[in-house]
């Protein structure tokens, strides 16, 4: 339980800190600090068992079917990282409280910092790999927020975006790698994966898995060729840089190398890829760091080189190298965090980080200078400091590996070269800043920072010294248990002593120190040479060019497809559909005609079909004369209704017939406001092209129908036919399906209907259209809008029509009919009143507010469904019984009828809403040649 709490604590702290800062600028810092201290206190009781060699695993099932569990693990390696994250995090919190100036929003800063801390803890403490990837991505996201904390600075935004693109992209690759890993091992639990090293390395998917995981690692740890985001991330506030680039973010990559070391290492591929990338980054970083004039730039490239060193160590694949790698992780975190903080203090107190202007600060801030010098010496690998110990181990390992291969001497040589540059840039950090004459044109006079701002640096520098001088009494137990965690085995014998006699590595250290001092002394010509040559290379330019090309290609592709023309999109859609259909037909070997014998052809059907074909063709041919086309399409609808009658579908026939009526009214109303003719604007070629496409589509549809109709089929109709009466209490199976078996579908459909009605209402609101009162020849459409005979007849018809709709509704469960049809009939009857008697007359007599109808219909349908919950049945379970009504006799009542009532109300409401509001447009319409604008 406590591991979960430990990870969740910082996430909890984030909103609390953001909220707390409302009551005082410094509250956020106190809250963040308190939560971090609490997390450390929670971790403390778990330390003794882990030091004793135990591995704690806490897990809860989450999505067992996908192999995802919520599982946390605390062993030596994760404990070391958790300690680094929390302890350095606490120091950063203290430091940032002094670093940020009053204009910066403290709540936001500490909230982001806590989010990041929680994500990091999640990464290092995860037992489940998928869960780890989630936290991994969270670190990318929260570091994006931290790097872009000063949102008003363009470089901050750009740096953050670049970091997110690179590390986030790497995270995706890692996700793929982890899934492959889980596939190979059969489990996503780290314990299983770490025990399955031999299986993984022998698997054919090993190489892709390795590549994907290394992509994640290299992007996160800024290894060549993905290194360039790290220097640009320096746009972040210095406490962020100190945290992200010493103990966390970039260490997540090397953490994963160490974590998966037992599972993935030991192969040639691992050796080549990991040590290759590590060596390249080591040299590149060490070299470039020397030439950076920005203090933080120097530290950024130095971070690169140290990360390269650690990566190289894990790539060497000897257990001792892995121990050295773990050791250097600890050492680098301590000295680099203190150096970043010192650089921040200098920036804060002197107003610049440019080493060409920062000179001779020793006399202004001797205390800070001393701390920075010790930390820089540790970075250079000077004896008596922690950096010396791990660097010695590194040199020793390169020599050891060199003895195994022919050109092996190259490795120690290059390692020494990197050491030379490392000494040179560390020296520059010390000499350029604190000595080397007088400061040049500083914005403010430098002085010592507030007392407590130096405390975090002092703590870390003290650690550097203690580890460097008394390793056996300080870091030894932690290193032993962390190395055991990384190797998942007892590490080989090693000695942390300062003096091992005259060894090759001591010689390499001496050479590095001596040559490093010489390089620094001769730096001036080197600087000039660098400016003229390598300095002009910029990985960011390549990145920007690539990004630009990608975006450009993307928008070009989109511009080609999406031109904003509906005609073109419709054409493409039909074209693709026809192409897909063609491929489907051509790809199959089955004959077009099946074995099923069809119905015989009769004369009436033939005539009806000919009428339909003629009407459809006529609609297309005469579409420019819109009224004619509308009449013709009515014929099509009529024949379709008749077809439903003929082919045993009475419900469909009734529905289609009533929908025909409302559709016709709708289209006529619309035509009232639209031009009566379509202008001829398509060219003949275009018409021919469309005809060809239409023929292809029609031919395909006909062929498909033919192929289906001539084949026998299996259906599930039996279930509905058998259960309709005993289960649903209705003899009309179609209606029982609608309101009972598939009632949930119907509920969705009437909701859509209601929404369409409301959408139309919204679209029509405030719409003003030009209205014509005469046709194009100038003849008035009608002198008498409401002829008396029609008005009288429609009034007489209303009660009859309503009676019919009630009848249709009531019998619907057993005979053709039901809520949909009854609703349409009611709507038609009411619309008829509007058409015949006018809006004002009808409104006075029929309460025509349709919104409550839709609402109450949906409510009734939903409540009917919920009603079955009361009796402990699932949603929309129906019940039915027989009722004896006086006079009427035996009457069957099903709960589905209430549901059907809901359907009825929604259909009436939606239809009325649409047609009445469309009709009402004429009252707000613009006269066809009047003043005013068209909107």
């Amino acid at each position: 339980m406590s591991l979960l709490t430990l990870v969740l604590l910082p996430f909890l702290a984030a909103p609390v800190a953001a909220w707390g800062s409302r009551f005082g600028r410094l509250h956020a810092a106190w809250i963040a600090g308190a939560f971090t201290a609490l997390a450390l206190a929670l971790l403390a009781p778990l330390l003794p068992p882990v030091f004793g060699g135990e591995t704690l695993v806490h897990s809860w099932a989450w999505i067992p079917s996908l192999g995802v569990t919520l599982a946390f693990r605390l062993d030596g390696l994760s404990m070391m990282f958790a300690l680094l994250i929390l302890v350095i995090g606490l120091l950063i919190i203290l430091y940032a409280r002094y670093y940020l100036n009053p204009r910066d929003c403290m709540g936001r800063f500490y909230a982001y910092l806590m989010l990041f801390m929680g994500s990091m803890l999640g990464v290092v403490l995860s037992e489940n790999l998928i869960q780890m990837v989630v936290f991994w991505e969270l670190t990318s996201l929260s570091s994006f927020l931290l790097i872009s904390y000063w949102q008003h600075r363009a470089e901050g935004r750009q740096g953050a975006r670049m970091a997110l693109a690179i590390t986030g992209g790497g995270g995706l690759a890692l996700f793929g790698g982890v899934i492959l890993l889980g596939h190979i091992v059969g489990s996503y639990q780290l314990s299983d994966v770490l025990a399955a090293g031999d299986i993984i390395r022998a698997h054919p998917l090993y190489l892709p898995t390795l590549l994907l995981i290394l992509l994640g690692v290299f992007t996160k740890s800024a290894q060549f060729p993905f290194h360039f985001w790290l220097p640009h991330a320096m746009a972040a506030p210095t406490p962020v840089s100190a945290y992200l680039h010493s103990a966390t973010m970039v260490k997540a990559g090397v953490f994963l190398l160490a974590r998966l070391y037992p599972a993935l290492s030991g192969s040639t591929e691992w050796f080549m890829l990991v040590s290759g990338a590590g060596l390249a980054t080591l040299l590149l970083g060490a070299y470039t760091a020397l030439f950076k004039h920005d203090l933080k730039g120097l530290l950024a490239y130095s971070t690169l080189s140290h990360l390269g060193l650690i990566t190289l160590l894990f790539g060497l694949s000897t257990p001792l190298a892995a121990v050295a790698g773990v050791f250097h992780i600890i050492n680098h975190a301590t000295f680099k965090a203190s150096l970043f903080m010192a650089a921040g203090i200098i920036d804060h107190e002197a107003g610049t980080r440019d080493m060409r202007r920062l000179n001779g600060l020793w006399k202004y801030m001797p205390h800070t200078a001393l701390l920075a010098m010790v930390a820089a010496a540790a970075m250079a690998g000077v004896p008596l400091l922690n950096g010396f110990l791990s660097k010695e181990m590194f040199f020793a390992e390169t020599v050891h590996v060199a003895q195994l291969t022919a050109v092996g001497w190259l490795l120690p040589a290059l390692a020494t070269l990197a050491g030379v540059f490392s000494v040179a840039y560390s020296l520059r950090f010390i000499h350029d800043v604190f000595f080397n004459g007088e400061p040049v044109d500083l914005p403010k006079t430098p002085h010592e920072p507030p007392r407590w701002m130096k405390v975090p640096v002092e703590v870390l520098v003290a650690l550097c010294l203690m580890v460097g001088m008394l390793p056996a009494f300080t870091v030894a137990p932690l290193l032993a248990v962390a190395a055991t965690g990384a190797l998942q085995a007892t590490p080989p014998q090693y000695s942390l002593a300062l003096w091992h006699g005259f060894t090759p590595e001591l010689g390499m250290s001496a050479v590095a120190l001596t040559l490093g001092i010489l390089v620094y002394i001769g730096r001036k010509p080197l600087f000039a040479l660098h400016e003229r040559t390598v300095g002009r290379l910029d990985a960011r330019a390549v990145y920007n060019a690539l990004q630009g090309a990608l975006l450009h290609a993307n928008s070009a592709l989109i511009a080609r497809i999406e031109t904003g023309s509906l005609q073109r999109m419709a054409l493409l859609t039909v074209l693709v559909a026809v192409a897909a259909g063609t491929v489907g037909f051509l790809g199959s070997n089955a004959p077009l005609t099946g074995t099923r014998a069809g119905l015989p052809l009769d004369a009436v059907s033939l005539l009806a079909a000919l009428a339909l074909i003629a009407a459809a063709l006529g609609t297309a041919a005469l579409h420019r004369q819109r009224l004619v086309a509308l009449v013709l399409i009515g014929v099509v609808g009529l024949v379709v209704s008749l077809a439903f009658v003929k082919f045993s579908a009475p419900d469909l026939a009734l529905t289609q017939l009533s929908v025909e009526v409302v559709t016709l009214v709708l289209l006529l109303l619309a035509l009232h406001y639209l031009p009566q003719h379509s202008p001829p604007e398509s060219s003949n070629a275009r018409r021919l092209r469309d005809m060809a496409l239409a023929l292809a589509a029609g031919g395909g549809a006909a062929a498909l129908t033919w192929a289906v109709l001539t084949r026998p089929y299996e259906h599930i109709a039996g279930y509905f036919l058998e259960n309709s009466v005993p289960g649903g209490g209705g003899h009309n199976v179609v209606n029982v399906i609608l309101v009972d078996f598939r009632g949930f579908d119907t509920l969705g459909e009437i909701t859509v209907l209601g929404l369409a009605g409301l959408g139309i209402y919204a679209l029509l609101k405030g719409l003003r259209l030009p209205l014509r009162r005469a046709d194009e020849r100038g003849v008035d459409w009608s002198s008498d809008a409401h002829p008396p005979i029609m008005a009288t007849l429609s009034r007489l018809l209303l009660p009859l029509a309503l009676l019919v709709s009630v009848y249709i509704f009531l019998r619907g469960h057993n005979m053709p009919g039901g809520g949909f049809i009854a609703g349409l009939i009611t709507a038609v009857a009411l619309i008829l009143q509007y058409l015949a008697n006018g809006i004002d007359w009808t409104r006075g007599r029929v309460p025509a507010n349709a919104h409550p109808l839709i609402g109450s219909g949906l409510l009734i349908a939903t409540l009917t469904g919920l009603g079955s919950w009361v009796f402990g049945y699932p949603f929309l379970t129906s019940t039915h019984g027989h009722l004896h009504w006086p006079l009427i006799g035996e009457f069957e009542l099903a709960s589905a009828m209430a549901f059907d009532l809901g359907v009825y109300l929604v259909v009436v409401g939606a239809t009325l809403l649409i047609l009445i509001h469309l009709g009402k447009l004429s009252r707000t319409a613009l006269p066809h040649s009047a003043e005013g604008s068209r909107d």
Partner: protein
Amino acid sequence: MDALLSIAIGVLTATGVYLTLRGRTFPVVLGLTLLSYAVNVFLFLMGRASVGLPPLIAPEAAGYTDPLPQALVLTAIVIGFAMTAFVVVLALRARAELGNDHVDGLNTGLDETAERQHKGEREDRA
């Protein structure tokens, strides 16, 4: 009979597609209506055509046709009406905003009514 039904669906589809590709809103609405006829009948026919076998349970019935496609098509017809209505109103709105009824919303030229109205405005100003 099956051949006749296939041809009818083919014709409905072809005319529907042709009209859908036209440039003005009203023919497109007609085209969509024809296409929904085609689709509805096609779906309905997935239960195969049979005569005199309505899915109404009765002791004397000789048999029943498949009720499931019918139930699906019934709601499709009603939803189809809602869709047609929505498209029609969208077309009206577009005409009000753009002054013409071209589907691409291109103000390439005013249509007849709007043109006359425009002329009227000019005359009024003059």
